[in-house]
């Protein structure tokens, strides 16, 4: 897929809480095709430790209004600079990058997300819905504060949640949710994105039940386009670049 470098205009900065914002970015021409699971390399201003671009998943796409959304968790200087962007500001993106989630062979799918890993699942869910599949989301967080923008997910599919403190939904990790405790799961394809630890247990569960499982990794990146070889992950074929061979991998392909 062709990659672009474009200046987007921030048309909205929706603050969800202390930690999360959703940026809506508009392009002044038609958007190129963007697949669910792809990401952008975002240029923030050069602060002390923000020389490099920051990889951020495409959270949602609206071709008609030529807008994309980014869901950003502020964890350091770069993401904080994104969180501070205001309407009218310009943001330069290299995009769309990486492979994408595959099209399911089945109608029964589960989308499991945790933390800012929920970001790419919304656009994936929307695309699945357009293809006639109702996505079933399972979103986990430490507490209700971490469950963000549920309204958006609810518009697209069925939403299930877990919180570690039990403040909302099932208490515990995603793996403790009834959807993943059953021995006869109703779905046969899992898409997951979130903390490595979470994805590993999800992948293990999928393996045990012979369910196809695609995981989206968030390795540290320098270039995002396959030239620096910094973002590798260990696979059955050796080191592969998360930015070009991924970020989405079949869990059985990874040496986990």
């Amino acid at each position, binding site marked *: 897929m062709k*990659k672009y470098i474009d200046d987007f205009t921030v048309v909205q900065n929706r603050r969800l809480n202390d930690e999360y914002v959703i940026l809506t970015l508009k392009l002044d021409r038609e958007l190129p095709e963007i697949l669910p699971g792809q990401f952008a390399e975002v240029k923030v201003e050069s602060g002390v430790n923000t*020389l490099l671009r920051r990889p951020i998943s495409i959270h949602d796409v609206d071709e008609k209004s030529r807008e994309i959304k980014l869901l950003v968790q502020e964890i350091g200087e770069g993401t904080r600079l994104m969180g501070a962007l205001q309407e009218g500001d310009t943001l330069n993106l290299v995009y769309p990058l990486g492979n994408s989630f595959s099209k399911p062979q089945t109608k029964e799918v589960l989308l499991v997300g945790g933390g800012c890993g929920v970001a790419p699942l919304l656009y994936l869910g929307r695309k699945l819905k357009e293809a006639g599949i109702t996505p079933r989301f399972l979103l986990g967080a430490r507490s209700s504060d971490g469950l963000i923008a549920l309204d958006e997910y609810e518009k697209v599919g069925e939403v299930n949640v877990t919180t570690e403190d039990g403040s909302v939904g099932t208490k515990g990790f995603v793996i403790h949710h009834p959807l993943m405790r059953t021995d006869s799961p109703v779905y046969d394809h899992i898409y997951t994105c979130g903390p490595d630890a979470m994805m590993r247990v999800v992948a293990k569960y999928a393996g045990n039940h012979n369910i196809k499982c695609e995981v989206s990794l968030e390795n540290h990146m320098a270039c995002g386009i396959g030239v620096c070889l910094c973002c590798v992950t260990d696979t059955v074929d050796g080191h592969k670049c998360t930015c070009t061979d991924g970020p989405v991998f079949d869990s059985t392909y990874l040496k986990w």
Partner: protein
Amino acid sequence: MVDLTVDLNGLKLKNPVMTASGTFGYGTEYIDFFDISRLGGIVVKGTTLNHREGNPYPRMAETPHGMLNAVGLQNKGIDYFISDIYPEIKDYDTNMLINVSGSTVEEYEEVARKVNELEKIPGIELNISCPNVKEGGMAFGTSCPSAVSVVNAVRKIYKKHLMVKLSPNITNVTEIAHAVEGEGADSVSLINTLLGMAVDADSRRPLLSTVTGGLSGPAVKPVALRMVWQVSQVVKIPVVGLGGIMTATDAVEFMLAGAAAVQIGTANFIDPLVSLKVIDGIEAYCTKHGFSSASELTGAMISE
């Protein structure tokens, strides 16, 4: 009209701007962004005799205005390059140089022998300065006798342009530069990365799997400029300057300090179009300051 061409001891460049090894892939990764034939040259990824998996993840960390990498020369080996990459890139209308690395003199020799057969490859950049591998690599570039032995051996085999890439992790860079010139290097390029390290205070762990790695980006520019200046005073062969170049002004500074051409590395990650901007900016600088050719910039620093 400014004449941007540069004659690098026989190697003709359209303009003084090349892209640095390990930061521009094989060029193909950038064709979506711009016409890479506009470049003076492309130095492709570090290539070794055999396939190398490189170092474990994590391999990079950001530092104040710089980055550390510990890729460790991951590549599929020269034979794969010849069979799978070369056919794809050989007709790019720019100088495609292969960056060659090895753990032993024999490895360097064997790769050089194979590259010598590649009609469309006008030169080798001999990497005797990679800080991210256990054997060979930087070790060759940090002592005169070993630098001499590898350059001498490769020079006997390799007939086209031989650029030797120097390490900055050294007490006296001019000694090595002088020594490799004596062995018949056609040019030297510098600097490779400075050996550095980063620690995450919270997890108390090093940020790289290898603990130490190579520092690049704007942070190293003052060191790079200094070494380019020092080396250009003592060698007669052209010096290719790199290290932290982000803008045309940076590139001009390197040329004023003595570089005949420049390479752009880390900046490609931040702005894939940076090399074009640098080319245009060098031209604009020449126009503004009354230079009719870019090559006049080389060593044009005024220091009384």
